[in-house]
């Protein structure tokens, strides 16, 4: 039993989320096993980003639990907490780059703080990670000097800096051109393939959902519950909820 728990990077148990008295979502319950690519879908404002904030430990649940590798984020020692955070890479919806640092410095910061690699090695890693997201040669630029899509990709490079075992992406392809979006999908698949990364991703890009997702959940804004769960390719055809089918088929 313990053994299997350890292998679940993210487990959400009966989670209810609220801002003050405002209920956002209730009774969420799902697992993301190792190596899965879980897509979180739903209309804007239904609480997807909020769910992400709960899973990465920025917000405390109103009730229920968030387990990471079997450890309750809000009921564990500080070391366990830090270890969990360090094993997660997060891409925020707006990129959230540190504006007073260059892109290379943004990627380098977690490496400098949490590893003992040499400066030269860190520099090479930064260059490589930036190249992976298609920003080769841009390391010397400041966030204010690049476009929104580039900021997103730089945020991705930073999220991958420490080779995290779990990656969280908040609408990574919003603001990306189709080519970059396609490369991003390939990158996500490759990270899972070669490094065994687990990915939780919020996205509306249907093409990307059908390419990469191995599992998905749909959060409903009205009932404030999870109303569908499963492989999106199957949900598209045979989900009992009409709303979800429409979402996945792009109908109105």
């Amino acid at each position, binding site marked *: 039993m313990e053994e299997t728990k350890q292998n679940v990077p993210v487990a959400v148990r009966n989670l209810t989320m609220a801002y003050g008295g405002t209920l956002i979502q209730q009774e969420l319950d799902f697992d993301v096993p190792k190596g899965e690519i879980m897509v979180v879908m739903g209309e804007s404002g239904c609480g997807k980003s909020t769910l992400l904030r709960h899973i990465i430990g920025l917000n405390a649940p109103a009730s229920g639990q968030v387990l990471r590798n079997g450890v309750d984020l809000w009921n564990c020692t500080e070391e366990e907490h830090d270890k969990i955070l360090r094993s997660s890479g997060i891409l925020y919806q707006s990129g959230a780059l540190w504006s*007073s640092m260059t892109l290379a410095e943004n990627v380098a910061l977690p490496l400098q703080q949490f590893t003992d690699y040499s400066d030269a090695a860190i520099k090479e890693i930064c260059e490589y990670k930036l190249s*992976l997201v298609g920003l080769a040669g841009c390391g010397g630029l400041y966030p204010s000097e690049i476009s929104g899509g580039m900021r997103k990709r730089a945020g991705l490079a930073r999220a991958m800096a420490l080779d995290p075992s779990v990656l969280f992406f908040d609408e990574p392809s919003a603001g990306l051109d189709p080519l970059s979006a396609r490369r991003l999908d390939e990158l996500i698949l*490759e990270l899972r393939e070669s490094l065994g990364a687990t990915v939780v991703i919020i996205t509306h890009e249907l093409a990307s959902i059908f390419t990469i997702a191995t599992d998905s959940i749909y959060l409903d804004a009205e009932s404030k519950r999870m109303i569908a769960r499963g492989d999106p390719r199957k949900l598209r055809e045979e989900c009992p909820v009409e709303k979800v089918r429409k979402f996945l088929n792009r109908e109105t």
Partner: protein
Amino acid sequence: MADTLQVWKLTKSQDGWAVIALSGDWTSPNAFPSGILEEKYAGVRVEDAGIREWNTALAVFLFNLSKECDRQSITLEMQGMPHGAAKLVALSKAAPPKDLHKSLEVPHFFELLGEKAKGTYDSCMVGIGFVGELLLSFYHLLRGRARMRWIDVWNEIIKAGPKALFIVSLIGFLMGLILAFIGSIPLKWFRAEVYVASLIGIGMLRLMAVVMTGTVMAGRTGAAYAAELGTMQVNEEIDALESMGISPIEYLVLPRVIALTLMMPFLCLFADIIGVLGGMVVGVFYMGLSSLEYWQQMSNTTRVNDLLVGLFTSVVFAVLIALCGCIRGIRCGRSSDSVGQATTSAMVSSLVCLVIATAIITVITVNLNI
């Protein structure tokens, strides 16, 4: 343990290729051995001679190797590599590197000097232009065409007036107290204790109350203006206003200038009263005057003009503080760092302006006997 770490061995094959055999654990990144391909080779082939574990470290090595090969325009064969690593390297090279023409040369001393001088000149011109724009928007306001919301003025009034009252009165009270204490030293030599009331009356009303109020407001409100507008600049909120045809000067600066200009005289008046009370506390409890004596002495020697000069100065201060804060905020750069700089320089420049203005006003009014 050491022998399990990453190992690479380069051999030259008969056909002139470099064969690099990798083994061990490729899990901790080291700097790339840049001299690895010093000799001229026909091509490079990497082979797996027992790679146990690998992660980014291997990908970074291959990435650098492939860049080196590109530089020498020779082919790199990675068939022997773990599939994932080769794929990652291919992905990382999918988008061509951008050529950035950022000059990294250290400029000459005179170049720096010239740039500094030009920067100072530019910022003076910006300041003047800013004042001009502000006057123009004030004219728009008088003709009822300014794009400004009175609710904003009201909000700023609340922030700059009632919310500043406590700190201003605290400082005013203490200033009155301190001034009276210090004044009591020489006055005692001449047994002229009663003149402490004149000292407080003239000193507080004319100068100390307004200077202290100005300093507090520069730190409290001027800096807040710079931080607010600076953050808006960082978030492109000011661009959003401008692109809609709404002048940020009218919409953001004007309400703040109006609010602060309306509130400063009241704050100053308040500080005057509280400061006089502070002086009275010292006069009565420390120097043995009666409160009637204190009051009579003050009203005999202090003129209405003293009060008016102080209030006039407070209006000048209000405009200066609001202007310095808003200019620095609007001219803020695009990073969190520059918001800090904007706040600091708003504070510094408004204090400098206050001191200069005080000097000018004092010299003029004293000479004209006002």
